[in-house]
Protein backbone atom coordinates (compact mmCIF):
# COMPACT_ATOMS: atom_id res chain seq x y z
CA UNK A 1 0.00 0.00 0.00
CA UNK A 2 1.09 3.54 -0.75
CA UNK A 3 -0.01 6.04 1.88
CA UNK A 4 1.54 8.96 -0.01
CA UNK A 5 4.07 9.69 2.66
CA UNK A 6 6.47 12.58 2.17
CA UNK A 7 10.13 11.89 1.54
CA UNK A 8 10.86 12.84 5.13
CA UNK A 9 8.22 10.48 6.49
CA UNK A 10 9.62 7.67 4.37
CA UNK A 11 13.07 8.33 5.78
CA UNK A 12 11.73 8.10 9.33
CA UNK A 13 10.21 4.77 8.44
CA UNK A 14 13.36 3.46 6.75
CA UNK A 15 15.62 4.38 9.64
CA UNK A 16 13.24 3.02 12.29
CA UNK A 17 12.82 -0.18 10.26
CA UNK A 18 16.58 -0.62 9.89
CA UNK A 19 17.12 -0.23 13.62
CA UNK A 20 14.20 -2.56 14.36
CA UNK A 21 15.49 -5.26 12.05
CA UNK A 22 19.20 -5.04 12.81
CA UNK A 23 19.26 -3.99 16.45
CA UNK A 24 15.94 -4.91 18.05
CA UNK A 25 14.81 -8.16 16.44
CA UNK A 26 17.99 -10.09 17.29
CA UNK A 27 17.72 -9.22 21.01
CA UNK A 28 13.97 -9.09 21.67
CA UNK A 29 13.71 -12.60 23.09
CA UNK A 30 16.70 -12.01 25.34
CA UNK A 31 15.31 -8.66 26.55
CA UNK A 32 11.97 -10.33 27.25
CA UNK A 33 13.64 -13.09 29.21
CA UNK A 34 15.98 -10.87 31.23
CA UNK A 35 13.50 -7.97 31.62
CA UNK A 36 16.45 -5.72 30.96
CA UNK A 37 15.75 -2.08 30.13
CA UNK A 38 16.77 -1.50 26.48
CA UNK A 39 19.20 1.36 27.08
CA UNK A 40 21.50 0.37 24.27
CA UNK A 41 18.65 0.57 21.76
CA UNK A 42 17.44 3.87 23.23
CA UNK A 43 20.92 5.30 22.60
CA UNK A 44 20.80 4.15 18.98
CA UNK A 45 17.35 5.73 18.56
CA UNK A 46 18.72 8.94 20.05
CA UNK A 47 21.72 8.97 17.73
CA UNK A 48 19.38 8.48 14.80
CA UNK A 49 17.32 11.55 15.82
CA UNK A 50 14.09 9.58 16.21
CA UNK A 51 13.14 10.98 19.64
CA UNK A 52 12.51 14.39 18.08
CA UNK A 53 10.42 13.50 15.04
CA UNK A 54 7.20 14.96 16.51
CA UNK A 55 8.74 17.98 18.26
CA UNK A 56 9.05 21.48 16.74
CA UNK A 57 12.38 22.47 15.22
CA UNK A 58 12.82 25.37 17.65
CA UNK A 59 13.11 22.78 20.43
CA UNK A 60 15.56 20.59 18.57
CA UNK A 61 12.97 18.37 16.94
CA UNK A 62 12.36 17.62 13.29
CA UNK A 63 9.10 19.51 13.11
CA UNK A 64 6.84 16.56 12.41
CA UNK A 65 3.66 15.65 14.21
CA UNK A 66 1.61 12.71 15.38
CA UNK A 67 1.95 10.90 12.04
CA UNK A 68 5.76 11.08 12.12
CA UNK A 69 5.73 9.76 15.67
CA UNK A 70 3.36 6.94 14.66
CA UNK A 71 5.57 5.90 11.73
CA UNK A 72 8.62 5.57 13.98
CA UNK A 73 6.62 3.70 16.63
CA UNK A 74 5.02 1.33 14.12
CA UNK A 75 8.32 0.21 12.60
CA UNK A 76 9.86 -0.41 16.00
CA UNK A 77 6.76 -2.24 17.18
CA UNK A 78 7.09 -4.60 14.24
CA UNK A 79 10.13 -6.00 16.04
CA UNK A 80 9.19 -5.49 19.72
CA UNK A 81 6.50 -3.43 21.42
CA UNK A 82 8.35 -3.39 24.73
CA UNK A 83 11.11 -1.40 23.05
CA UNK A 84 8.61 0.68 21.06
CA UNK A 85 6.62 1.45 24.23
CA UNK A 86 9.75 2.65 25.98
CA UNK A 87 10.29 5.02 23.07
CA UNK A 88 6.70 6.20 22.82
CA UNK A 89 6.27 6.66 26.58
CA UNK A 90 8.95 9.34 26.45
CA UNK A 91 6.70 11.17 24.00
CA UNK A 92 3.76 10.69 26.34
CA UNK A 93 5.78 12.42 29.06
CA UNK A 94 6.74 15.22 26.68
CA UNK A 95 3.28 16.02 25.30
CA UNK A 96 1.94 17.83 28.42
CA UNK A 97 4.96 20.15 28.24
CA UNK A 98 4.62 20.61 24.48
CA UNK A 99 0.87 21.27 24.66
CA UNK A 100 0.59 23.26 27.88
CA UNK A 101 4.09 24.12 29.14
CA UNK A 102 5.42 27.65 29.50
CA UNK A 103 8.08 28.83 27.06
CA UNK A 104 10.70 28.36 29.80
CA UNK A 105 9.53 24.80 30.47
CA UNK A 106 9.63 23.98 26.76
CA UNK A 107 13.13 25.45 26.39
CA UNK A 108 14.35 23.53 29.40
CA UNK A 109 12.86 20.11 28.77
CA UNK A 110 11.96 19.57 25.11
CA UNK A 111 15.45 19.81 23.54
CA UNK A 112 16.89 17.10 25.82
CA UNK A 113 13.87 14.91 25.14
CA UNK A 114 14.15 15.55 21.37
CA UNK A 115 17.83 14.58 21.36
CA UNK A 116 17.08 11.46 23.39
CA UNK A 117 19.62 12.59 25.97
CA UNK A 118 16.88 12.17 28.59
CA UNK A 119 13.76 10.02 28.64
CA UNK A 120 10.45 11.33 29.88
CA UNK A 121 7.48 9.62 31.54
CA UNK A 122 3.89 10.47 32.39
CA UNK A 123 2.44 9.71 35.82
CA UNK A 124 -1.32 9.69 36.32
CA UNK A 125 -2.37 6.19 37.44
CA UNK A 126 -2.58 5.30 41.13
CA UNK A 127 -3.74 2.25 43.07
CA UNK A 128 -7.25 3.69 43.27
CA UNK A 129 -7.23 5.88 40.20
CA UNK A 130 -6.93 4.34 36.77
CA UNK A 131 -9.85 4.80 34.46
CA UNK A 132 -11.33 7.19 37.04
CA UNK A 133 -8.74 9.96 37.13
CA UNK A 134 -10.99 11.73 39.65
CA UNK A 135 -9.78 9.28 42.27
CA UNK A 136 -6.22 10.65 42.32
CA UNK A 137 -4.93 10.90 45.88
CA UNK A 138 -1.43 12.25 45.35
CA UNK A 139 -1.43 15.81 46.63
CA UNK A 140 0.56 18.92 45.81
CA UNK A 141 0.48 21.70 48.41
CA UNK A 142 1.77 25.18 47.69
CA UNK A 143 4.45 26.26 50.18
CA UNK A 144 5.88 29.67 49.29
CA UNK A 145 7.91 29.29 46.09
CA UNK A 146 7.49 25.54 46.13
CA UNK A 147 4.97 22.75 45.86
CA UNK A 148 5.23 19.76 48.16
CA UNK A 149 4.05 16.45 46.68
CA UNK A 150 2.90 13.42 48.64
CA UNK A 151 1.52 10.14 47.37
CA UNK A 152 2.28 7.19 45.11
CA UNK A 153 1.86 6.73 41.37
CA UNK A 154 1.55 3.18 40.10
CA UNK A 155 2.53 1.28 36.93
CA UNK A 156 4.45 4.18 35.44
CA UNK A 157 6.21 3.30 32.20
CA UNK A 158 9.90 4.33 32.12
CA UNK A 159 9.84 5.00 35.88
CA UNK A 160 13.32 4.93 37.35
CA UNK A 161 14.96 5.22 33.93
CA UNK A 162 13.46 8.54 32.80
CA UNK A 163 14.82 11.86 34.05
CA UNK A 164 11.74 14.00 33.38
CA UNK A 165 8.30 13.15 34.80
CA UNK A 166 5.03 14.91 34.18
CA UNK A 167 2.81 14.08 37.12
CA UNK A 168 -0.80 14.84 37.99
CA UNK A 169 -1.58 15.67 41.63
CA UNK A 170 -4.48 17.19 43.52
CA UNK A 171 -4.04 20.84 44.50
CA UNK A 172 -7.59 21.41 45.71
CA UNK A 173 -9.54 18.45 47.00
CA UNK A 174 -12.83 20.40 47.15
CA UNK A 175 -12.96 20.99 43.39
CA UNK A 176 -13.07 17.35 42.24
CA UNK A 177 -11.69 16.89 38.73
CA UNK A 178 -11.01 20.63 38.55
CA UNK A 179 -8.78 20.36 41.58
CA UNK A 180 -6.00 18.42 39.85
CA UNK A 181 -2.83 20.02 38.46
CA UNK A 182 0.09 18.83 36.35
CA UNK A 183 3.75 19.26 37.34
CA UNK A 184 7.20 18.46 36.05
CA UNK A 185 9.22 16.42 38.53
CA UNK A 186 12.86 15.64 37.88
CA UNK A 187 14.72 12.52 38.88
CA UNK A 188 16.80 13.59 41.86
CA UNK A 189 14.26 16.04 43.28
CA UNK A 190 14.26 15.77 47.10
CA UNK A 191 11.64 13.32 48.36
CA UNK A 192 11.17 11.67 44.97
CA UNK A 193 12.00 7.96 44.63
CA UNK A 194 10.87 4.79 42.90
CA UNK A 195 9.07 1.67 44.04
CA UNK A 196 9.67 -1.91 43.08
CA UNK A 197 9.86 -2.98 39.45
CA UNK A 198 6.68 -4.80 38.45
CA UNK A 199 6.68 -8.33 37.04
CA UNK A 200 4.48 -8.33 33.98
CA UNK A 201 2.80 -10.83 31.66
CA UNK A 202 4.34 -9.21 28.61
CA UNK A 203 6.13 -6.00 27.67
CA UNK A 204 8.83 -7.24 29.98
CA UNK A 205 11.73 -5.13 28.71
CA UNK A 206 9.72 -2.00 29.45
CA UNK A 207 10.26 -0.63 32.96
CA UNK A 208 7.10 -0.31 35.06
CA UNK A 209 7.50 1.05 38.59
CA UNK A 210 5.94 3.24 41.22
CA UNK A 211 6.72 6.92 41.69
CA UNK A 212 7.02 7.67 45.40
CA UNK A 213 6.54 11.24 46.61
CA UNK A 214 7.46 11.78 50.21
CA UNK A 215 7.40 15.51 50.95
CA UNK A 216 8.86 16.00 47.51
CA UNK A 217 9.69 19.71 47.14
CA UNK A 218 9.72 21.18 43.67
CA UNK A 219 9.96 24.83 42.58
CA UNK A 220 6.56 26.43 41.90
CA UNK A 221 7.51 27.10 38.27
CA UNK A 222 7.25 23.36 37.62
CA UNK A 223 3.47 23.74 37.52
CA UNK A 224 2.24 23.05 33.97
CA UNK A 225 -0.39 25.57 32.85
CA UNK A 226 -2.46 26.70 35.84
CA UNK A 227 -3.70 25.06 39.02
CA UNK A 228 -6.83 23.02 38.34
CA UNK A 229 -5.89 22.23 34.74
CA UNK A 230 -4.46 18.78 35.47
CA UNK A 231 -7.46 16.90 34.16
CA UNK A 232 -7.57 18.93 30.91
CA UNK A 233 -3.80 18.46 30.44
CA UNK A 234 -4.26 14.71 30.86
CA UNK A 235 -7.20 14.40 28.47
CA UNK A 236 -5.60 16.56 25.76
CA UNK A 237 -2.36 14.62 26.11
CA UNK A 238 -4.18 11.33 25.58
CA UNK A 239 -6.00 12.82 22.59
CA UNK A 240 -2.68 13.22 20.76
CA UNK A 241 -0.91 10.16 22.19
CA UNK A 242 -3.56 7.50 21.52
CA UNK A 243 -2.88 7.10 17.81
CA UNK A 244 0.62 6.11 18.98
CA UNK A 245 -0.88 3.13 20.81
CA UNK A 246 -2.74 2.33 17.59
CA UNK A 247 0.63 2.47 15.81
CA UNK A 248 2.13 0.06 18.35
CA UNK A 249 -0.73 -2.31 17.56
CA UNK A 250 -0.29 -1.97 13.79
CA UNK A 251 3.42 -2.69 14.03
CA UNK A 252 2.80 -5.66 16.29
CA UNK A 253 0.17 -7.04 13.88
CA UNK A 254 2.52 -6.66 10.94
CA UNK A 255 5.31 -8.41 12.81
CA UNK A 256 3.00 -11.31 13.69
CA UNK A 257 1.57 -11.49 10.16
CA UNK A 258 5.10 -11.54 8.67
CA UNK A 259 5.97 -14.59 10.72
CA UNK A 260 2.62 -16.34 10.24
CA UNK A 261 2.70 -16.05 6.43
CA UNK A 262 6.35 -17.04 6.16
CA UNK A 263 5.69 -20.08 8.32
CA UNK A 264 2.49 -21.09 6.51
CA UNK A 265 4.35 -21.07 3.21
CA UNK A 266 7.05 -23.38 4.55
CA UNK A 267 5.18 -25.74 6.85
CA UNK A 268 4.17 -28.83 4.93
CA UNK A 269 1.31 -31.09 6.11
CA UNK A 270 -0.63 -33.61 4.03
CA UNK A 271 1.94 -33.00 1.29
CA UNK A 272 1.25 -29.29 0.89
CA UNK A 273 2.37 -26.04 2.49
CA UNK A 274 -0.39 -25.20 4.98
CA UNK A 275 -1.02 -21.86 3.25
CA UNK A 276 -2.59 -23.95 0.46
CA UNK A 277 -5.41 -24.87 2.86
CA UNK A 278 -8.29 -22.43 2.92
CA UNK A 279 -8.71 -22.79 6.66
CA UNK A 280 -5.26 -21.24 7.10
CA UNK A 281 -5.53 -18.93 4.09
CA UNK A 282 -8.67 -17.30 5.41
CA UNK A 283 -7.15 -16.74 8.82
CA UNK A 284 -4.17 -15.02 7.22
CA UNK A 285 -6.48 -13.03 4.95
CA UNK A 286 -8.45 -11.74 7.94
CA UNK A 287 -5.24 -10.89 9.76
CA UNK A 288 -3.93 -8.95 6.75
CA UNK A 289 -7.25 -7.16 6.20
CA UNK A 290 -7.63 -6.04 9.79
CA UNK A 291 -3.98 -4.99 9.97
CA UNK A 292 -4.25 -2.83 6.86
CA UNK A 293 -7.54 -1.31 8.02
CA UNK A 294 -5.89 -0.46 11.34
CA UNK A 295 -2.95 1.16 9.62
CA UNK A 296 -5.18 3.27 7.37
CA UNK A 297 -7.17 4.33 10.45
CA UNK A 298 -4.11 5.29 12.49
CA UNK A 299 -2.60 7.33 9.65
CA UNK A 300 -5.90 9.07 8.93
CA UNK A 301 -6.41 9.94 12.61
CA UNK A 302 -2.81 11.16 12.93
CA UNK A 303 -3.15 13.33 9.83
CA UNK A 304 -6.42 14.79 11.09
CA UNK A 305 -4.84 15.68 14.45
CA UNK A 306 -1.80 17.16 12.69
CA UNK A 307 -4.11 19.35 10.58
CA UNK A 308 -4.85 21.29 13.76
CA UNK A 309 -8.40 20.01 14.15
CA UNK A 310 -9.95 20.54 17.57
CA UNK A 311 -12.59 17.79 17.71
CA UNK A 312 -10.11 14.94 17.98
CA UNK A 313 -11.22 12.98 21.07
CA UNK A 314 -13.47 10.57 19.21
CA UNK A 315 -11.16 9.75 16.30
CA UNK A 316 -8.23 9.51 18.71
CA UNK A 317 -10.11 6.96 20.83
CA UNK A 318 -11.18 5.07 17.71
CA UNK A 319 -7.58 4.92 16.48
CA UNK A 320 -6.56 3.31 19.76
CA UNK A 321 -9.56 1.03 20.23
CA UNK A 322 -9.78 -0.74 16.90
CA UNK A 323 -6.10 -1.54 16.17
CA UNK A 324 -5.45 -2.79 19.70
CA UNK A 325 -8.45 -5.16 19.63
CA UNK A 326 -7.19 -6.29 16.21
CA UNK A 327 -3.70 -6.84 17.63
CA UNK A 328 -5.06 -9.24 20.23
CA UNK A 329 -6.85 -11.24 17.53
CA UNK A 330 -3.99 -11.16 15.03
CA UNK A 331 -1.32 -12.24 17.52
CA UNK A 332 -3.59 -14.97 18.90
CA UNK A 333 -4.14 -16.25 15.35
CA UNK A 334 -0.43 -16.04 14.58
CA UNK A 335 0.12 -18.43 17.47
CA UNK A 336 -2.67 -20.62 16.06
CA UNK A 337 -1.09 -20.71 12.59
CA UNK A 338 2.21 -21.79 14.09
CA UNK A 339 0.42 -24.39 16.19
CA UNK A 340 2.64 -26.05 18.80
CA UNK A 341 5.62 -24.02 17.64
CA UNK A 342 3.62 -20.86 18.18
CA UNK A 343 3.05 -21.76 21.83
CA UNK A 344 6.75 -22.33 22.47
CA UNK A 345 8.87 -19.56 23.88
CA UNK A 346 11.53 -20.37 21.29
CA UNK A 347 9.38 -18.66 18.65
CA UNK A 348 8.53 -14.95 18.67
CA UNK A 349 4.73 -15.08 18.30
CA UNK A 350 4.26 -16.36 21.85
CA UNK A 351 5.80 -13.13 23.16
CA UNK A 352 3.77 -11.10 20.69
CA UNK A 353 0.53 -12.55 22.03
CA UNK A 354 1.56 -11.86 25.63
CA UNK A 355 2.64 -8.35 24.69
CA UNK A 356 -0.57 -7.60 22.76
CA UNK A 357 -2.79 -7.74 25.86
CA UNK A 358 -1.41 -4.55 27.38
CA UNK A 359 -2.51 -2.56 24.33
CA UNK A 360 -6.16 -3.11 25.29
CA UNK A 361 -5.41 -1.90 28.81
CA UNK A 362 -2.93 0.97 28.99
CA UNK A 363 -3.54 4.61 28.06
CA UNK A 364 -7.21 4.03 28.82
CA UNK A 365 -8.76 0.58 28.66
CA UNK A 366 -10.69 -0.20 25.52
CA UNK A 367 -13.87 0.02 27.60
CA UNK A 368 -12.93 3.60 28.42
CA UNK A 369 -12.27 4.28 24.72
CA UNK A 370 -15.79 3.05 23.98
CA UNK A 371 -17.10 5.39 26.67
CA UNK A 372 -15.32 8.32 25.05
CA UNK A 373 -16.57 7.39 21.59
CA UNK A 374 -20.13 6.90 22.90
CA UNK A 375 -20.13 10.20 24.79
CA UNK A 376 -18.77 12.05 21.76
CA UNK A 377 -21.46 10.49 19.57
CA UNK A 378 -24.10 11.64 22.00
CA UNK A 379 -22.70 15.19 21.98
CA UNK A 380 -22.22 15.24 18.23
CA UNK A 381 -25.74 14.11 17.43
CA UNK A 382 -27.20 16.33 20.12
CA UNK A 383 -25.97 19.31 18.10
CA UNK A 384 -27.63 18.12 14.90
CA UNK A 385 -31.13 19.48 14.47
CA UNK A 386 -32.25 17.45 11.44
CA UNK A 387 -33.57 13.91 11.51
CA UNK A 388 -32.19 11.01 9.53
CA UNK A 389 -35.42 9.04 9.45
Amino acid at each position, binding site marked *: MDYFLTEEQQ*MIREIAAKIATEKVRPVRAELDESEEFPWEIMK*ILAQSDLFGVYLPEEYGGLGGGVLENCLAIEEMARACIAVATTFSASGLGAYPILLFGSEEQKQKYLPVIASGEKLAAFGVTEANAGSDAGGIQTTAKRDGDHYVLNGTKQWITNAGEAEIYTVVAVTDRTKGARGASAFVVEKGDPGFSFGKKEKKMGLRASATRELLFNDCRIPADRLISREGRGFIVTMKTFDVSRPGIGALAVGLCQGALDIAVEYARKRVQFGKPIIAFQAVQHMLADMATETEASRALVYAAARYIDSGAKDISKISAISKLYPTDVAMRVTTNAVQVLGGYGYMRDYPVEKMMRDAKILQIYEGTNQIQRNIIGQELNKEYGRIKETFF
Partner: protein
Amino acid sequence: MHVVVCIKQVPDAKNVRIDPETCTLVREGVESIVNPHDWYAVEAALRFRDEYGGKVTALTMGPPQAEEALREIVALGVDEAVLLSDRAFAGADTWATSLTLARAVEKLGPVDLVICGKQAIDGDTAQVGPGLAAHLDQPYTTYARRLELQDGGQLRAERVTDFGYEVVQMSLPAVVTVVREIGDPRMPGLKHKMRARKLEIPVLGAADLNLDPEEVGLQGSFTQVVRVFSPPPRCDREMISGEVEEQVEKLIQLLKEAKVSGL
Protein backbone atom coordinates in the same frame (compact mmCIF):
# COMPACT_ATOMS: atom_id res chain seq x y z
CA MET B 1 42.05 16.11 11.74
CA HIS B 2 40.99 15.50 8.19
CA VAL B 3 40.14 11.84 7.70
CA VAL B 4 39.42 10.43 4.26
CA VAL B 5 37.52 7.17 4.08
CA CYS B 6 37.68 5.22 0.83
CA ILE B 7 34.71 3.08 -0.06
CA LYS B 8 33.70 0.93 -2.98
CA GLN B 9 30.34 0.11 -4.47
CA VAL B 10 30.23 -3.62 -5.18
CA PRO B 11 27.64 -6.05 -6.53
CA ASP B 12 25.67 -7.76 -3.79
CA ALA B 13 27.67 -10.98 -3.49
CA LYS B 14 24.57 -12.99 -2.63
CA ASN B 15 23.33 -12.65 -6.21
CA VAL B 16 26.48 -12.71 -8.33
CA ARG B 17 27.10 -14.92 -11.37
CA ILE B 18 30.20 -15.20 -13.50
CA ASP B 19 29.86 -15.15 -17.27
CA PRO B 20 31.68 -18.34 -18.37
CA GLU B 21 32.60 -16.78 -21.74
CA THR B 22 34.15 -13.50 -20.61
CA CYS B 23 35.09 -14.56 -17.06
CA THR B 24 33.67 -11.30 -15.74
CA LEU B 25 30.90 -10.63 -13.25
CA VAL B 26 27.41 -10.43 -14.65
CA ARG B 27 26.28 -7.09 -13.24
CA GLU B 28 22.91 -6.81 -14.92
CA GLY B 29 20.06 -7.05 -12.46
CA VAL B 30 22.40 -7.33 -9.49
CA GLU B 31 21.88 -4.81 -6.74
CA SER B 32 24.83 -2.64 -5.80
CA ILE B 33 25.80 -2.27 -2.16
CA VAL B 34 28.52 -0.56 -0.19
CA ASN B 35 31.33 -3.07 0.26
CA PRO B 36 30.53 -4.65 3.67
CA HIS B 37 34.10 -4.21 4.97
CA ASP B 38 33.93 -0.50 4.18
CA TRP B 39 31.20 0.11 6.76
CA TYR B 40 33.86 -0.58 9.39
CA ALA B 41 36.18 1.91 7.70
CA VAL B 42 33.40 4.51 7.87
CA GLU B 43 32.76 3.71 11.52
CA ALA B 44 36.50 3.97 12.27
CA ALA B 45 36.68 7.34 10.50
CA LEU B 46 33.64 8.71 12.35
CA ARG B 47 34.93 7.53 15.72
CA PHE B 48 38.31 9.09 15.01
CA ARG B 49 36.64 12.39 14.15
CA ASP B 50 34.27 12.23 17.13
CA GLU B 51 37.27 11.63 19.40
CA TYR B 52 39.80 14.06 17.96
CA GLY B 53 37.70 16.57 16.01
CA GLY B 54 37.92 17.58 12.37
CA LYS B 55 36.01 16.19 9.44
CA VAL B 56 35.53 13.04 7.41
CA THR B 57 35.48 13.03 3.61
CA ALA B 58 34.29 9.93 1.79
CA LEU B 59 35.95 9.05 -1.48
CA THR B 60 35.02 6.50 -4.08
CA MET B 61 35.95 5.70 -7.64
CA GLY B 62 33.25 4.22 -9.81
CA PRO B 63 30.50 4.79 -12.33
CA PRO B 64 28.11 7.74 -11.82
CA GLN B 65 25.70 5.60 -9.79
CA ALA B 66 28.42 5.10 -7.14
CA GLU B 67 27.16 8.45 -5.89
CA GLU B 68 24.35 6.48 -4.22
CA ALA B 69 26.89 4.60 -2.11
CA LEU B 70 28.36 7.93 -1.00
CA ARG B 71 24.94 9.29 -0.02
CA GLU B 72 24.28 6.14 1.95
CA ILE B 73 27.32 6.69 4.13
CA VAL B 74 26.82 10.45 4.43
CA ALA B 75 23.59 9.41 6.21
CA LEU B 76 25.80 7.98 8.96
CA GLY B 77 27.37 11.38 9.58
CA VAL B 78 30.25 11.63 7.09
CA ASP B 79 30.80 15.34 6.39
CA GLU B 80 31.70 15.49 2.71
CA ALA B 81 31.91 13.18 -0.26
CA VAL B 82 33.79 13.13 -3.54
CA LEU B 83 33.16 10.85 -6.51
CA LEU B 84 35.94 9.95 -8.94
CA SER B 85 34.22 9.09 -12.17
CA ASP B 86 35.57 9.11 -15.69
CA ARG B 87 35.27 6.72 -18.60
CA ALA B 88 39.06 6.60 -18.58
CA PHE B 89 38.99 5.04 -15.06
CA ALA B 90 37.12 1.94 -16.25
CA GLY B 91 38.83 -1.43 -15.97
CA ALA B 92 41.39 -0.27 -13.41
CA ASP B 93 43.39 -2.86 -11.47
CA THR B 94 44.59 -2.20 -7.92
CA TRP B 95 47.61 -0.23 -9.15
CA ALA B 96 45.61 2.17 -11.31
CA THR B 97 42.85 2.41 -8.68
CA SER B 98 45.21 3.23 -5.83
CA LEU B 99 47.09 5.74 -8.01
CA THR B 100 43.84 7.51 -8.87
CA LEU B 101 42.70 7.53 -5.24
CA ALA B 102 46.11 8.81 -4.13
CA ARG B 103 45.96 11.77 -6.51
CA ALA B 104 42.48 12.55 -5.22
CA VAL B 105 43.65 12.42 -1.60
CA GLU B 106 46.45 14.85 -2.50
CA LYS B 107 43.92 17.13 -4.13
CA LEU B 108 41.70 17.05 -1.03
CA GLY B 109 44.69 17.77 1.19
CA PRO B 110 45.98 18.28 3.69
CA VAL B 111 44.71 14.89 4.81
CA ASP B 112 45.89 13.40 8.11
CA LEU B 113 44.59 9.88 7.82
CA VAL B 114 43.18 7.68 5.08
CA ILE B 115 41.06 4.71 6.22
CA CYS B 116 39.99 1.80 4.00
CA GLY B 117 38.15 -1.44 4.61
CA LYS B 118 40.41 -4.48 4.71
CA GLN B 119 39.37 -5.58 1.23
CA ALA B 120 36.48 -5.46 -1.23
CA ILE B 121 34.23 -8.48 -1.54
CA ASP B 122 34.32 -8.47 -5.34
CA GLY B 123 38.08 -8.51 -6.03
CA ASP B 124 39.20 -9.62 -2.56
CA THR B 125 42.74 -8.38 -3.23
CA ALA B 126 43.24 -6.21 -0.12
CA GLN B 127 45.81 -4.30 -2.18
CA VAL B 128 44.24 -0.90 -2.68
CA GLY B 129 44.87 0.33 0.90
CA PRO B 130 48.60 -0.48 0.87
CA GLY B 131 48.84 0.64 -2.77
CA LEU B 132 47.39 3.99 -1.81
CA ALA B 133 50.04 4.36 0.90
CA ALA B 134 52.76 3.54 -1.63
CA HIS B 135 51.53 6.12 -4.11
CA LEU B 136 51.22 8.70 -1.33
CA ASP B 137 54.60 7.66 0.07
CA GLN B 138 53.11 7.38 3.53
CA PRO B 139 53.38 4.82 6.34
CA TYR B 140 50.53 2.34 6.61
CA THR B 141 49.20 -0.59 8.51
CA THR B 142 46.53 -3.16 7.70
CA TYR B 143 43.80 -5.07 9.59
CA ALA B 144 43.64 -2.50 12.38
CA ARG B 145 41.14 -3.19 15.15
CA ARG B 146 41.90 -0.07 17.16
CA LEU B 147 43.21 3.39 16.32
CA GLU B 148 44.43 5.92 18.81
CA LEU B 149 46.18 9.24 18.59
CA GLN B 150 49.13 9.47 20.99
CA ASP B 151 50.04 12.64 22.87
CA GLY B 152 52.97 13.28 20.53
CA GLY B 153 50.64 13.15 17.52
CA GLN B 154 51.67 9.61 16.56
CA LEU B 155 49.06 7.10 15.49
CA ARG B 156 48.93 3.91 17.53
CA ALA B 157 47.20 0.99 15.88
CA GLU B 158 46.41 -2.53 17.04
CA ARG B 159 46.73 -4.86 14.10
CA VAL B 160 44.98 -8.22 14.09
CA THR B 161 47.15 -11.21 13.19
CA ASP B 162 46.55 -14.96 13.21
CA PHE B 163 48.23 -15.20 16.60
CA GLY B 164 46.87 -12.18 18.46
CA TYR B 165 47.56 -8.57 17.68
CA GLU B 166 50.52 -6.36 16.98
CA VAL B 167 50.85 -2.80 18.17
CA VAL B 168 52.30 -0.45 15.62
CA GLN B 169 52.97 3.23 15.86
CA MET B 170 53.51 5.65 13.02
CA SER B 171 53.53 9.33 12.23
CA LEU B 172 50.73 11.02 10.35
CA PRO B 173 49.77 11.38 7.58
CA ALA B 174 49.21 7.66 7.17
CA VAL B 175 46.97 5.03 5.65
CA VAL B 176 45.24 2.21 7.55
CA THR B 177 42.88 -0.58 6.64
CA VAL B 178 40.53 -1.78 9.36
CA VAL B 179 38.67 -4.97 10.30
CA ARG B 180 35.27 -5.52 11.89
CA GLU B 181 36.70 -5.58 15.42
CA ILE B 182 37.04 -1.80 15.08
CA GLY B 183 33.34 -1.57 16.08
CA ASP B 184 29.84 -2.03 14.72
CA PRO B 185 28.86 0.51 12.11
CA ARG B 186 26.38 3.03 13.48
CA MET B 187 22.82 3.40 12.25
CA PRO B 188 21.92 6.27 9.89
CA GLY B 189 20.56 9.44 11.50
CA LEU B 190 17.53 11.32 10.27
CA LYS B 191 19.26 14.70 10.12
CA HIS B 192 22.28 13.22 8.36
CA LYS B 193 20.02 11.40 5.92
CA MET B 194 18.23 14.62 5.04
CA ARG B 195 21.58 16.33 4.52
CA ALA B 196 22.76 13.40 2.41
CA ARG B 197 19.82 13.84 0.09
CA LYS B 198 20.80 17.41 -0.73
CA LEU B 199 24.58 17.26 -0.41
CA GLU B 200 26.46 18.37 -3.47
CA ILE B 201 28.94 15.68 -4.42
CA PRO B 202 31.76 16.90 -6.66
CA VAL B 203 32.73 14.56 -9.50
CA LEU B 204 36.40 14.51 -10.47
CA GLY B 205 37.83 13.00 -13.64
CA ALA B 206 41.36 12.18 -14.82
CA ALA B 207 41.99 15.74 -15.98
CA ASP B 208 40.95 17.16 -12.60
CA LEU B 209 43.58 14.97 -10.96
CA ASN B 210 46.26 15.81 -13.53
CA LEU B 211 46.37 12.17 -14.54
CA ASP B 212 47.16 11.10 -18.05
CA PRO B 213 44.53 8.72 -19.50
CA GLU B 214 47.39 6.26 -20.04
CA GLU B 215 48.04 6.08 -16.29
CA VAL B 216 44.50 5.17 -15.27
CA GLY B 217 41.84 2.57 -15.97
CA LEU B 218 42.59 -0.44 -18.09
CA GLN B 219 45.46 1.34 -19.85
CA GLY B 220 47.22 2.13 -16.60
CA SER B 221 46.76 -1.38 -15.25
CA PHE B 222 49.62 -3.88 -15.02
CA THR B 223 47.41 -6.87 -14.37
CA GLN B 224 44.80 -8.40 -16.55
CA VAL B 225 42.11 -10.91 -15.65
CA VAL B 226 42.79 -13.83 -17.97
CA ARG B 227 40.41 -16.32 -16.51
CA VAL B 228 38.05 -16.69 -13.55
CA PHE B 229 37.32 -20.21 -12.38
CA SER B 230 36.65 -22.36 -9.34
CA PRO B 231 39.95 -23.96 -8.32
CA PRO B 232 40.16 -27.76 -8.62
CA PRO B 233 40.70 -29.75 -5.41
CA ARG B 234 44.32 -29.30 -4.37
CA CYS B 235 45.38 -32.90 -3.78
CA ASP B 236 44.24 -36.38 -2.77
CA ARG B 237 43.09 -36.55 0.78
CA GLU B 238 43.42 -39.40 3.17
CA MET B 239 41.51 -39.61 6.43
CA ILE B 240 43.47 -41.17 9.28
CA SER B 241 41.41 -43.19 11.71
CA GLY B 242 42.05 -45.03 14.96
CA GLU B 243 43.05 -43.98 18.48
CA VAL B 244 44.73 -40.61 18.89
CA GLU B 245 48.17 -42.21 19.46
CA GLU B 246 47.79 -44.37 16.35
CA GLN B 247 46.69 -41.37 14.33
CA VAL B 248 49.72 -39.38 15.44
CA GLU B 249 52.12 -42.19 14.55
CA LYS B 250 50.52 -42.70 11.19
CA LEU B 251 50.61 -38.95 10.52
CA ILE B 252 54.31 -38.71 11.38
CA GLN B 253 55.05 -41.67 9.16
CA LEU B 254 53.18 -40.13 6.25
CA LEU B 255 54.89 -36.78 6.73
CA LYS B 256 58.28 -38.50 6.73
CA GLU B 257 57.38 -40.33 3.55
CA ALA B 258 56.39 -37.03 2.01
CA LYS B 259 59.83 -35.71 3.06
CA VAL B 260 58.45 -32.76 5.00
CA SER B 261 61.44 -30.85 6.37
CA GLY B 262 62.11 -31.01 10.13
CA LEU B 263 60.97 -34.60 10.55
